[in-house]
Structures are given as structure tokens and as C-alpha cells.
């Protein structure tokens, strides 16, 4: 448990990005909560620094109602909302907003396998935009691995935000992935309410939840012979791989 605690990189209240300011894009797969999280972060910034210190941008022209949704939040907060349709548009918009303390960019959700991901990576790279990758705690570990690998090319990937922590049965796989890829965890979201359900990471709580065992009645909990069988199978695979390698071949992955 100490290893996990040491391995988990997080921000604290002294390095809260809403205080430091900057341009941040929220990126990630579909349906993880990018727009809602953008609104929560916007509220956090406005509450501390005032509406004039923030501008909102959306690059999502694809999803029905994406721009409208952010505009509604902008209206409640008294913050301007801009739509940027492409890289040139984004550059012009960011140029206009260069003196704003903080700019938050809501982006289109996309599959990590979509080649648009690399286009988006390039667009943000050209414009000095830091990215925050949103990861849902309800996703499978292997999917999250896939997602992070696709976005790791972002030279300005500042870190990640873990969403739907309230919905996830276990935090083990998502925290494992974050630790392994050495991503810095900026915020944790545990519900749909704007602005309440967004928090700086609470390390003891997260680590505790990650190691908490599944309920006894859960079919996903390993019981009886199962742990042994799982480990035996893993050991057999490893032995197999070793023999292939020593025979001069390559291991199939």
C-alpha cells in the first residue's frame, strides 16, 4: 500500500491550476464527463478569481448541443464562451484571450483509436495548450491503458482527472493505470453536480478505496481456488514466454 501511495502523483491546494492559471484543454474518450468537468472547473475559478479572469472555449462542433450546453454554464457564471472550429480558429481565439488568467477548452470526445486524436494532439501542441486527460473510473484497466497510450504523445499532457469515482465499484484498476503511466492526478470527480462534485485528490481515501476488497457476494471477487489458478496461469505464460525468448524467437504479445 505504501508503494501505491508513493507511486501516485497528485496535485494539492498549493498547485491548484485555477490559481496558477493557464490554458487547459480537457480531452479524453466519449462520455467521461469532459463538459461537466469543464463547468465545475470554471465555477472553481470564477468563485476564487471572478468571472473576468476566465474564458471558456469549445472545440466540439460534432456532438448535438455541446456548444449550447457550455453556453448555458457560461451564462450562469457570467463567463464568455467561444466556439473554435479548427486549428486556425483556435489560434485566433487564443490570441484574443491571451490576457485572460485562465482559459478552459472543452473538446470533442473521441475513441482513442480515432485518428482525430493525433490531429487534436497536434492542434494543441501548436498552441501551447496544456491537456488534462479525463479518465473514467468505471472503465476497464486495459481500455484505460489503451487510452493513455494514444494520448501520451501530447507533449503538453499535464496529467489526468479521474471521473465517476462514485459509480466505480473499485478504484483499483484506474489508479493502477495512472500510477503505472506516471500521470499526475489533478482532480477527482464523484458525481454530476456542478460545482460540488469536483475535488482535489484525497490520497488516503483513494489508496484505501483501491485496496478495499470487493464484497463477498460479488462474482468478480476471487475466491477459493481462483487466486491460485490465476497465478498459476500467469506463471505458465511467463515460463512459456521465457522459453520462446531463450530459443531465439520473439514473444507474441
Amino acid at each position, binding site marked *: 500500500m505504501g508503494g501505491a501511495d508513493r507511486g501516485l502523483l497528485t496535485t494539492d491546494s498549493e498547485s491548484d491550476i485555477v490559481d496558477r492559471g493557464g490554458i487547459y484543454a480537457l480531452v479524453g474518450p466519449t462520455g467521461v464527463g469532459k463538459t461537466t468537468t469543464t463547468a465545475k472547473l470554471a465555477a472553481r475559478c470564477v468563485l476564487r478569481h471572478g468571472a473576468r479572469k476566465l474564458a471558456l472555449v469549445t472545440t466540439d462542433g460534432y456532438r448535438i448541443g455541446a456548444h449550447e450546453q457550455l453556453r448555458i*454554464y457560461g451564462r*450562469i*457564471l457570467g463567463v464568455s464562451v467561444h466556439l473554435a472550429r479548427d486549428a486556425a480558429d483556435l489560434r485566433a481565439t487564443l490570441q484574443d484571450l491571451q490576457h485572460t488568467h485562465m482559459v478552459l477548452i472543452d473538446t470533442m470526445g473521441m475513441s482513442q483509436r480515432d485518428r482525430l486524436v493525433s490531429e487534436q494532439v497536434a492542434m494543441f501542441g501548436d498552441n501551447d495548450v496544456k491537456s488534462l486527460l479525463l479518465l473514467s473510473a468505471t472503465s476497464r484497466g486495459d481500455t484505460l491503458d489503451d487510452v493513455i497510450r494514444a494520448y501520451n504523445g501530447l507533449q503538453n499532457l499535464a496529467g489526468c482527472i479521474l471521473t465517476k469515482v462514485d459509480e466505480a465499484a473499485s478504484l483499483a484498476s484506474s489508479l493502477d493505470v495512472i500510477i503505472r503511466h506516471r500521470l499526475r492526478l489533478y482532480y477527482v470527480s464523484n458525481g454530476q453536480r456542478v460545482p*460540488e462534485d469536483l475535488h482535489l485528490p484525497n490520497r488516503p481515501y483513494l489508496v484505501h478505496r483501491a485496496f478495499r476488497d470487493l464484497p463477498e457476494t460479488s462474482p468478480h471477487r476471487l475466491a477459493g481456488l481462483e487466486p491460485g489458478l490465476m497465478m498459476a496461469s500467469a506463471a505458465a505464460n511467463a515460463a512459456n514466454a521465457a522459453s520462446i525468448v531463450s530459443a531465439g524467437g520473439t514473444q507474441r504479445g
Partner: protein
Amino acid sequence: MVNLRGDQAAGLRRLFSRPRLRIVTFAAGGVGVGKSIAVANLAACLARQGKEVLVVDENTDDSVAAYYGVPVRHDLQQVVHREKSLAEVILSVAPGVRVLPAAKVVKRLASLSAAEQRILVDSLGHIGRPADVVLVDASLDHPLGFSPLGLAAHDTVIVVSPNGAAITDAYALIKKVSLGYSRKNFRILVSKARAASDAQAVYDNIAEVAHSRQLARLDYAGHVPLDESLRQASRLCQPVAGLFPDAPSARAYQSLASALLNWPNGDVDVRGLEHFVQQLLHLSQRLDPTAIYA
């Protein structure tokens, strides 16, 4: 947990949809500096910018209502004693400007019974159209030494005119309130100024002394020029900005009004007039006049 009484942004709306009520008190160290005339004109300028202004007047003489040519017949005290309704006491002196004569009740705030306090709070919560800005014209002599309204307000503006006596009186007032009530932030408005540089000099002078004695931080709110138009307008019981909008004094009041609306709220705990009044009553119970005469 999802609460279906609203949408997911219900908390956000609660935080941001409140009209931000601003309460500013105007005080002076002595008579004749132009405090009430400033309050009357400022109220008019704020109303011209679309704000609903309520002037709470602690003065019996030279009241703001009198400046508008409206006679004062009643007092908030009569509402507290259930002799009159608030609607009968409040005076609509101009579009967007209402005056609440409160001279009598303010002197007795500390000795109101619990029932009377409740009436006071309730009635101020129901002043009809809610106010955007409350200007308090504080009285000079107060049994408690300083108006509790001045202490409970967000901003206190000390009006001073550019002559030795007024400056001395203003400084004495600042010293009294700073030492007696730990109120350490004030704004200075210089009225009847012959030139902007004179007014700036008055402010610099008084701010320097207050700062060096570590008494208070003074911000410069601006100045109102000495202006014949202003005198004419007041003789006609009209705000100068309506009669002579291009007069220097009118322009000064207009820019002061805009600036006032943008003054930062020190503590962002704005929950309306009832809250202010509750704080006020709370304060007036605790004010100890002996502290400042010591």
C-alpha cells in the same frame, strides 16, 4: 445523490444568480462638507444606470429627501412600533431612488426589544422592489459614537472638503472608528474641490498620516468639483446630473457611481438586506461607547 428538485447546476445557480446587494455608508467628521448632497446625487446617478437605490437616512436635518424636495413625515421607528407600515414610511423621491428615513430608529438600535428587532428585519426584507444598492447617509452624532450602519456596511466613504477644519475632523473620525471599532478600511471622497490636484493632495495627506500611524488604509474614491451648476440644481431640488449632465460635478458623480458598482466586495457574504440588518442589530448590541471616549 441526485436531487430532482433542480438540475445538476442547481448549486451553481444558487451561487451565481443572486443579485449582489451593495451597501455603502457615507460619513463625515463635521457638518457642511457636502455629504448629503453627495449621497443624493450619487443615488440619482446610480438610478440613471438602471440600479434600484435605497437611501437609508440617519439625519433629521439636511436629509436626502429634503434635497429632492420631498418632506419627511415618518420614520422607520414608527414601523418598528407598528404605528405605520413600511410602505407609508418609505419615500419614492425619483425614479429608481427611494429614501427610508431612519434617524430615530438608528439612535435606539441597541435598545430594541427582540420583537422590535424581528419587525425591523422582516420589514426590510419586504421593501417591495429589491434594491441593488443601499446608500447610508450616516449621522454625525450618535449615542454609540459611530453609526452601526457604517460598521456593518461593505464600504465606508468619508466625505471631506479641502479645508483645515474638515480634514482634521475627518482624521479624528477615522482615528475614533479605527481604534474604537477596529474598522481599518475607508474610502475618501473630496467634495467642493477647486482642482483635481488639490483633492489628490488632500487625500494623499490624510492617507499618509493614517498609514504611518497604522490606523487605517484609505482608498481614494475621487473628488467632486466646486460647481455653480451643483448649487443651482440643489436650489431647484434636482440632481445635477439630470439638469446639467455636462457639468463637471455631474460627470464626477457619474464616474463615482460607475466606480462604486465595481468596488470589490471585501467578504463575499452578500445575502441581502435582512442579513445586513441582522448583522447591524448584532453589532449595535455589542458596541461599547466607553471604548471610544477612553
